[in-house]
């Protein structure tokens, strides 16, 4: 338990910092921080799949987008929706799509799984992009943001910030409890050696499917928050580039650790702001993807355990959920 205390304190410090941040930040800071926290929620959802269960999903954007689109499409046009009904509904719809995608994708393994999840996300993209359901490339506006009784008006940036922080905290605590539960331990076992789990008596498919559905639901929560924050959704939310970004976030932060999702989301946002900054790069700032791409390649090559692994790498000892493996060895084709 001794090694757990620093981690716990670190996370506590992060949330404390986030709690006081609005008092020192300006409007832009609050807006940016809210956006980063939303992506942190999305990253947490993917961490459950990739980091805990070992399922590399390249289609998280679909559940994110469905949560967002459901928020807008299910909000009545004449008055604000009730948060208490709208939020769970959006989460459930995203989870429902995750159930369908998961049921089909989990029939495949390895590389196939990556490709299939990407394809199913692209399918969702085309539904909102091509059909009138999604309002086409222009996207749709959320007329009125949902409210909770009289005391929560998400139209105010500060309220939105606090609500997002609460959701992030809730998701984090939920996933932390999940990781130490029997379910979480079973998922970890499946990640390390699925065959051994089956030989021991675990039917692994239902476990993986459940993880997929929970992950989809949390991604839907992130989508809900995003839609409410900006009051606007468009098909680009479901772009496969979003799926790629979330994957990068959790690798950057550190796979196998919930706090990796937090660190990764902030680090990635900082990287984006850095490469986009005209003050530093002048006219090359609009080609910021170049710097980002090179950073991704370098960080995956050089920091296999992400930012979370840096203290251990510096101290020269093994740490973290995946032990001290340096370059993970490929288990074979397909």
């Amino acid at each position: 338990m001794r090694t757990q205390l620093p981690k716990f304190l670190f996370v506590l410090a992060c949330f404390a910092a986030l709690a006081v941040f609005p008092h020192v930040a300006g409007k832009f800071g609050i807006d940016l921080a809210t956006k980063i926290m939303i992506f942190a929620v999305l990253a947490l959802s993917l961490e459950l799949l990739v980091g805990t269960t070992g399922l590399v999903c390249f289609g998280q954007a679909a559940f994110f987008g469905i949560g967002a689109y459901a928020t807008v499409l299910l909000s009545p046009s004449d008055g604000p929706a009730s948060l208490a009904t709208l939020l769970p509904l959006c989460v459930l719809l995203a989870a429902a799509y995750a159930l369908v995608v998961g049921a089909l994708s989990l029939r495949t393994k390895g590389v196939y799984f990556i490709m299939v999840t990407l394809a199913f996300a692209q399918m969702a993209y085309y539904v909102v992009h091509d059909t009138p359901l999604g309002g086409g490339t222009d996207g749709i506006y959320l007329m009125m943001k949902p409210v909770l009784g009289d005391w929560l008006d998400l139209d105010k940036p500060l309220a939105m910030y606090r609500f997002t922080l609460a959701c992030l905290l809730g998701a984090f605590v939920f996933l932390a409890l999940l990781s130490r539960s029997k379910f979480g331990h079973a998922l970890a076992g499946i990640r390390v050696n699925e065959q051994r789990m089956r030989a021991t008596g675990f039917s692994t498919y239902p476990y993986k499917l459940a993880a997929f559905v929970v992950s989809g639901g949390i991604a839907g929560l992130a989508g809900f928050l995003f839609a409410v924050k900006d009051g606007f959704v468009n098909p680009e939310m479901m772009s496969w580039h979003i799926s790629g970004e979330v994957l990068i976030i959790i690798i950057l932060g550190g796979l196998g650790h919930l706090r990796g999702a937090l660190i990764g989301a902030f680090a990635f946002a900082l990287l984006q702001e850095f490469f986009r900054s005209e003050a530093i790069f002048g006219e090359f700032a609009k080609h910021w993807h170049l710097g980002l791409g090179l950073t991704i390649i370098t960080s995956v090559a050089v920091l296999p355990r992400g930012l979370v692994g840096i203290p251990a790498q510096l101290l020269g000892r093994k740490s973290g959920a995946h032990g001290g493996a340096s370059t993970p060895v490929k288990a074979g084709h397909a």
Partner: protein
Amino acid sequence: MDLTTFLIQCLNALQYGLLLFLVASGLTLIFGIMGVINLAHGSFYMIGAYMAFALAPWVASTVGGGFFTTLVLGLVLAVALGYFLEWAFYSFLYTREHLQQVLMTYGLILVFEELRSLLVGDDVHGVQAPDFLSGSIPLGDMMVYPVYRLFISGVCLLLALGMYFVFAKTRLGMMIRAGSTNREMVQSLGIDIKFLYRVVFAAGVAIAVLAGMVAAPVSSVYPGMGGLVLIICFVVVVIGGIGSIRGALLASLLIGLVDTFGKVLVPQVAGVLVYVLMAAILLWKPDGLFKAG
């Protein structure tokens, strides 16, 4: 739909399917033989298309050559690019996990997109088919069909036959197939496996680039094209079975049919149909239609 339209759409489906097959076979080859999942494969297709756009005027003014000269030049550049990339980047990916390969090649996509943006810009372009290949010819006495599309189908078919010949009938093909199943054994036989892999990779890149160059006149040249072709290639591989060239061909033609007729019959949901097809096949055969072979 009358018979003429039906036949024309069939030919369109064939052309699209064969083009897809060309690109997908490069992807499935690189994965089947070297075990690398390469997200940047779509970028090679994009590079080919932009090369067709950017090189043509240069070739015309410096060398005075036309379409085929541009193609040849593009191919040479592609092989060189593939050779270099394998040596500088991809050879380091062979022992890494799939997740790392996915992310590193995704980073490469971003790099390619921005390099293209720096060199050629982000505009959408049209590319003219060469004069001697433009226009339509009558097929039978019922319809006319664009010559260039027939040309595309012809090129793809020729390349497909060429690949089959190399794999099944030549020593090089045999070495490649052996290298995919037993790397150490091939090495101990004195065959330079590193060189082999480099050749295979360069070939895969060249095929994708060629496909992009050849397709440019009919598909137009735009920034997001790499990503889109990549995802469809994934669907081809999932349906056809990874590592299987036969599977890739069958899947490509199936997708060509579904997509082409979908766009004509139910344009609103056409984009989704290919994925529905994939879902249906997954229900039936989770490993794809064929296993590697």
